[in-house]
């Protein structure tokens, strides 16, 4: 024993000597400023980032997971699009997640992620994200980092003012961008005015399971609803939506929807609606929409067809709906952490409008109205307006906040982020971004308690910022340190698709809760196996069901005979591993549906319709052990009319056979 200790010492000493001798110096010869930025984003090998960033995948339809401050990409979570890396939307179990009233939709357009909250702070339980094109809201588990639920939003079109949560995750909200016939019907387009409506949907969230339901849908005037934000603190009973096209134009919108100097922020008291509905208010209205849920025990998604929604007409609930005049075609609608200031970013205006919640309440008490919009009182501008930020930049879009009374606004046209003080409406700092910034994100910035060390600006255009990759170049995020008076640019990193928005959270709120494996004993998949003795092949007419298992490093069974041309072969494959980070893959030559990547304890299915006789191989696609290359098998395919008997073996035996067991 003594000897081994000395030997160990010898190894350690030798190693440390080698490290200290020669090799590249860790000190770069960059300037002091660059060196400082590098230090701030450097996460040493093996160390963890301090924050998660969930960045919208835009037209990829997905949600990507990055670490901050390193900007490293950890995972792309498939949500609204098929994902070959994970078999999502290809495997039999996940296909129902992409079902809609329009049929199976393989590719969506994801927009605005928002993390669930408890008492006004992000809690790291779920992240919600909206699909803009075929209106849907998804809920993603931050235990498994998988999509658990997708609900379609009827009567909506261009689901853009979504998917923001109230401060105790009572509701996640989905507002329509397009006004459309409500319910849909065949009518002339140019009769839009007064006949189209805008649906704003409130989805309830079950406190324990996160399960969503459309609690009610508000039938608003036929404007376009662009963005929204819940109130905070004093204003937490309210939700605010920006509107544009209050002109109700139906063609050449870039001109015809930009006529009015002011559009509105719609202020909606959702607590009053909740009360109204609890007392039997609202009208049950037929609507067919898909409600897809994932079951972690059955490892399977199912689609439930919903048949109606509860529709609420604003005229029925006095005191719950007001319009706040806001310059001009406002895009972003953001409420500061105190809940007092409501910022409308008029993308076409030279100024930014900041409304005051307390003034709004006073104006409502004093009935300081200036007409109405389809029966909804319009509050006099000066009676609700806190002030304006004069010429802060060109094309304001979105605003986030820190805990020190500052706001940060993106300017698309002038490509910059501007820091300004909310109370005195003075610009403090401005920093260029590269280029054409859309959203920005401060971790927890959508809550009462922003975690305000970092700011991520998300840019639509990168041009010369990275090595060129043909006509299509990456979109990007830029990380700032906002802990000081001046914003400091630290890092550029590419994003997946267009990063419409992002949600950030301290890593400690998530990292201890993530799922490591799925327990085999909790697996309720109808085609699961829990050990090799249960693996088998069963013929039902032309359908052949293979109950297969995988473990380092073999399949059971791995020799299958008696399959015929014209059969539909179901590979139901269970990963018997119960260890962290040991997925196995499977691919079958000529399978038109999917390869699979299967997590420990999970059962997943793909189908194969062999077209020709022969002996066809399958193999594991994810390097699983030193003997990964040996993890393979054969299926013998005989002619349609052959008499080859069904036979399945492993090492020449019936799988799992042990005479002495």
């Amino acid at each position: 024993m003594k000897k081994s200790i000395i030997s160990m010492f010898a190894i350690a000493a030798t190693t440390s000597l080698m490290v200290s001798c020669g090799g590249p110096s860790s000190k770069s010869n960059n300037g002091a400023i660059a060196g400082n930025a590098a230090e701030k984003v450097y996460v040493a090998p093996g160390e963890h980032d301090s924050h998660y960033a969930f960045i919208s995948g835009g037209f990829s339809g997905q949600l990507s997971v990055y670490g901050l401050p390193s900007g490293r990409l950890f995972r792309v979570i498939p949500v609204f699009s098929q994902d070959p890396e994970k078999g999502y939307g290809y495997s039999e179990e996940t296909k129902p997640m992409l079902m809609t009233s329009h049929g199976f939709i393989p590719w969506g357009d994801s927009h605005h992620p928002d993390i669930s909250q408890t008492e006004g702070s992000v809690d790291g339980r779920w992240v919600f994200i909206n699909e803009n094109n075929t209106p849907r809201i998804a809920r993603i588990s931050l235990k498994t980092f998988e999509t658990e639920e997708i609900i379609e939003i009827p009567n909506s079109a261009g689901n853009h003012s979504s998917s923001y949560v109230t401060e105790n995750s009572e509701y996640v909200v989905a507002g329509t961008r397009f006004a459309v016939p409500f319910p849909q019907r065949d009518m002339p387009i140019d009769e839009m005015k007064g006949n189209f409506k805008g649906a704003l949907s409130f989805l309830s969230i079950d406190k324990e399971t996160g399960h969503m339901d459309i609690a009610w849908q508000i039938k608003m005037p036929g404007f376009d609803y662009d963005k929204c934000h819940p109130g905070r603190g004093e204003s937490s009973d309210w939700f605010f939506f920006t509107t544009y096209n209050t002109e109700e134009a139906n063609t050449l919108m870039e001109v015809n929807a930009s006529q009015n100097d002011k559009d509105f922020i719609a202020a909606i008291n959702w607590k009053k609606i909740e009360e109204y509905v609890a007392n039997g208010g609202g009208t049950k209205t037929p609507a067919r929409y898909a409600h897809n849920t994932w079951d972690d025990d059955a490892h399977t998604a199912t689609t439930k067809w919903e048949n109606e929604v509860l529709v609420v007409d604003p005229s029925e609930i006095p005191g719950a709906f007001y319009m706040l005049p806001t310059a001009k075609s406002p895009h972003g609608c953001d409420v500061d952490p105190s809940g007092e200031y409501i910022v409308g970013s008029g993308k076409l205006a030279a100024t930014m409008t900041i409304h005051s919640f307390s003034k709004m309440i006073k104006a409502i008490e004093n009935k300081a109205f200036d007409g109405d919009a389809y029966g909804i009182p319009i509050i006099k501008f000066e009676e609700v307006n806190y002030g304006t930020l004069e010429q802060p930049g060109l094309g304001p879009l979105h605003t986030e906040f820190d805990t020190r009374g500052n706001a940060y606004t993106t300017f698309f046209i002038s490509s910059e982020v501007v820091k300004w003080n909310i109370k005195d409406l003075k610009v403090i700092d401005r920093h260029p971004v590269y280029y054409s910034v859309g959203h920005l994100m401060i971790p927890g910035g959508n809550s009462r308690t922003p975690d305000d060390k970092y700011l991520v600006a998300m840019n639509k255009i990168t041009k010369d910022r990275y090595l060129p990759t043909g006509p299509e170049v990456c979109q990007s995020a830029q990380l700032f340190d906002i802990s000081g008076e001046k914003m400091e640019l630290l890092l550029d990193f590419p994003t997946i698709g267009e990063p419409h928005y992002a949600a950030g959270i301290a890593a400690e709120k998530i990292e201890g809760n993530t799922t490591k494996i799925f327990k085999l004993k909790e697996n309720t998949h109808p085609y699961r196996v829990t050990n090799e003795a249960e693996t088998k092949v069963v013929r039902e007419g032309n359908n052949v069901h293979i109950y297969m298992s995988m473990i380092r490093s073999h399949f059971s069974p791995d020799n299958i005979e008696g399959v015929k041309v014209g059969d539909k072969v179901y590979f139901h494959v269970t990963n018997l591993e119960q260890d962290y980070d040991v997925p196995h893959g499977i691919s079958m030559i000529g399978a038109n549906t999917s390869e699979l990547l299967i997590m420990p304890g999970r059962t997943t299915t793909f189908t194969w319709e062999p077209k020709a006789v022969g002996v066809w191989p399958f193999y594991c696609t994810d390097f699983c052990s030193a003997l990964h290359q040996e993890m393979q098998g054969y299926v013998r395919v005989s002619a349609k009319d052959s008499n080859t008997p069904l036979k399945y073996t492993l090492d020449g035996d019936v799988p799992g056979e042990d005479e002495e067991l």
Partner: protein
Amino acid sequence: MKIKILSLLTITTLFFASCSGEEKAKEVVNEVTEEVTENVEDAVEEVVEATGDMANLGIGPITSVELDDLDPDLADEGKELYKTNCTACHKFGKRYIGPALSGLLDRRSPEWVMNMMLNPEEMITKDPIAMELLAEYSTQMANQQLTEDDARAILEFIRTKD
């Protein structure tokens, strides 16, 4: 032995301190590594010779197991766990992915068996028997995240086969 290693170390230090000739430095490192490896192997052999396999308790959370009269209920529980967690690689009657398990408790201490179930990663890199088995069977034993109670139940089931 002690002197030899220390002197080698001194030579190495001198070599590296002067930072001359990468090739030579590598040679010396190789020499040292070989020497160290031999020493470790010698030490392992000595331990095994001195005590025998049955005295090897393995490396892991289990330091002592009291085997009383066979507990049939616990063995039944262990059988179910065995089927789910072990049969993909082990049979009693014959060598499979891993060794045949018949007569296991005549060859290994109960502590070693449980530590192998609970702590296979460390066992295959440090325990002399486990290292030898990995060399022979190639496939590393999977960690099935068993609890100590699970492993104890499986051990009880294995007892019924002996």
